């Protein structure tokens, strides 16, 4: 093994186990709100949240067919679905550019690059 490989920082991110449903005994020690949050964040619940998200997005798009701005700020925002496209495309392009191109190729350095830590 080369020196470079040895110096690679170890990540502490642990892989999500196959089933990460909380143990009942552990849940019993949590507060009421904590218990509710813990049950709802289990991977088994993700389908419910996804349905809720896409259901709401569909509802917003239907509403957008009936409601328009009185005075469009940018011209194109008078058309239906401008803001859904802007939010979705803007978000995806931004994340892709930043995380796949700008950070890895131009900006990322080791955590102790300046020797501050």
């Amino acid at each position: 093994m080369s020196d470079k490989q040895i110096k690679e920082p170890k990540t502490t991110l642990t892989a999500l186990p196959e089933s990460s449903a909380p143990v009942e005994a552990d849940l019993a020690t949590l507060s009421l709100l904590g218990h509710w949050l813990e049950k709802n964040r289990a991977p088994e619940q993700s389908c419910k949240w996804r349905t809720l998200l896409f259901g709401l997005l569909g509802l917003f798009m239907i509403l957008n067919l009936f409601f328009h701005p009185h005075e469009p700020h940018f011209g194109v925002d008078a058309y239906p679905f401008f803001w859904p496209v802007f939010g979705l495309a803007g978000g995806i392009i931004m994340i892709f550019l930043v995380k796949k191109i700008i950070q890895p190729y131009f900006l990322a350095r080791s955590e102790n690059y300046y020797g501050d830590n």
Partner: protein
Amino acid sequence: MGTTELFVHPALAFIAAALILPFLPKGPRKVFLLLPPLIAIYTTFHNTPGTHLTINWLGQTLTLGRLDALSSIFVQVFAVISLAGLIFALHINDPAQHIAAMFYVAGSFGVVLAGDYLTVFIFWEMMAVGSTFLVLLNRTRESIRASFRYFLFHIFGGLFLLAGLILRYRALGTFEFTTALSFGLPFEGSTYDWLILIGFCVNAAVVPFHAWLPDAYPRGTVTGSVFMCAFTTKTAVYVLMRGFYGWDILAGAGAIMAVYGVLYASMENNTRRILSYHIVSQVGYMVAGIGVGTAMTLNGAAAHAYAHILYKGLLFMTTGAVLYSTGTTKLDELGGLAGRLPWVMLLYMIAALSISGFPIFNGFISKTMTIAGAAEAHQTWIALGLELAAVGTFISVGLKLPYFTFWGGKPLDMKRELKPIPVNMYAGMAILATFCIAQGLYPDLLYRYLPFPMTEANKNIFIPWTIWNVLQALMLLGFSGAAFYLMKDVITPHKALNLDFDWFYRLAGHGGMALLFKPCAWFDNIWTTVYQTVGLKLINFSAHFTTFFDRWIIDGLVDNTAYSVGGTGRVLAILQSGRLQQYLALMVIFITIVMALVWYLC
């Protein structure tokens, strides 16, 4: 008889408290801590508007208390956040941290109420010193180094301000703090205006003068960073509003800040650094509003400053609480805390939805005003940039940060040691959360204090709660959420340092050191050579001469004197034989010689 005028400068309460605090025992100190912010809140509602506390100093008239519509809204929000911040910090048993915070807050009040540039400068520097200690007192190697860099950079900014105000005084003969346009100068401004503007832009974290902020704020103390996120950039926003509204360059700079901060935040791993980059972004909205310079955008900037101080304070409190409890702010080390820190998560989400401009929270009523104002002033690209920044804000602060801290990625881990969070920290967070929701639901709570009256007569009306505004916000944020959902694996944070403009600062710092060191080293080398070749020989010669002089002149003189005294003594000892006949014979010889001499000479 008119009504009685009242003016108590809130900074005085904080300075007095900072001076008294070290002498108080622990118990009374905690009660006493809350006195200055309570006085500040009282003065907010009872001080009489106008010009107060004018003093003559070194031939100049300094105005310490200019209270008008613009300064009073900043005084009000500073008073609120100082109370919430000190309640949040009540459990700290380190008086030095409280004293630093008190001087820092006092400096902010001083700047906002100053009527002249000289007073601004004095309090400006007081803020720089106070806030430096809030980083330094974290007492880690990392924070000590960061505080030094922070201080150097603020001194650099302060020097621009000082140079500008001195040149301005030479040109105009006054230190009065008025807008750069009110002297009838060309729109572009004079050299001194630009110097002052750069000084202000350093504190407002305008790109590229912003990198001190994400360098220092994540390294401050848990409670200190709550103060820092509220005061430095917002006093800068205030002075920009007072002195430079309508400067076009600020509109563009603000939009760049808004997007730039968001881009960096979306790649960061450190929670407090994500929030720091979002300060740059959110202050960008305010700077853009100031640059556009209409009544609505200025109101929007002031409203957003108010709302931002509250939700950003809450964001730093909640992430600070996570740091306090878990000991880390790194997203790759966090995760799955929803069950064990549920209230922190709930309070965090209130702040996160506020900053994202979600309806019912205060960001919704302030952010939309600036964007609408920019669009109505036909600054379409500025407004679009601000909308894009809103997308990025929701993705990184509204989703990425809470998802990787509280929600997804890791199972419930009961073995992880969590330090219990003190009640006072929850109380501080709850106060700000209440304000965030109250202002969102009832915008007049904020709008009534805005500097420009919102009336039909002056065509300065903005109603946030319309069906379209709510639907537009929900669509924008909802589909940004969908983008996060689809790109979750891509945006997963990992350990890295992302280069920013501080790379150039450090380069300039190293360059400055090299400029200073290289001539010094060169001179030192020459001097060493000269010293070795000439100086040492001179010293050797001098040493030899001294030795010779000492041995042969000094020692010789002393020794020979001794020898002479000894010899004379021996002769005298021989003469003193104690025999009377010898003494008489000597006397006769002596008298004969004297008589012979007298006879001969006469």
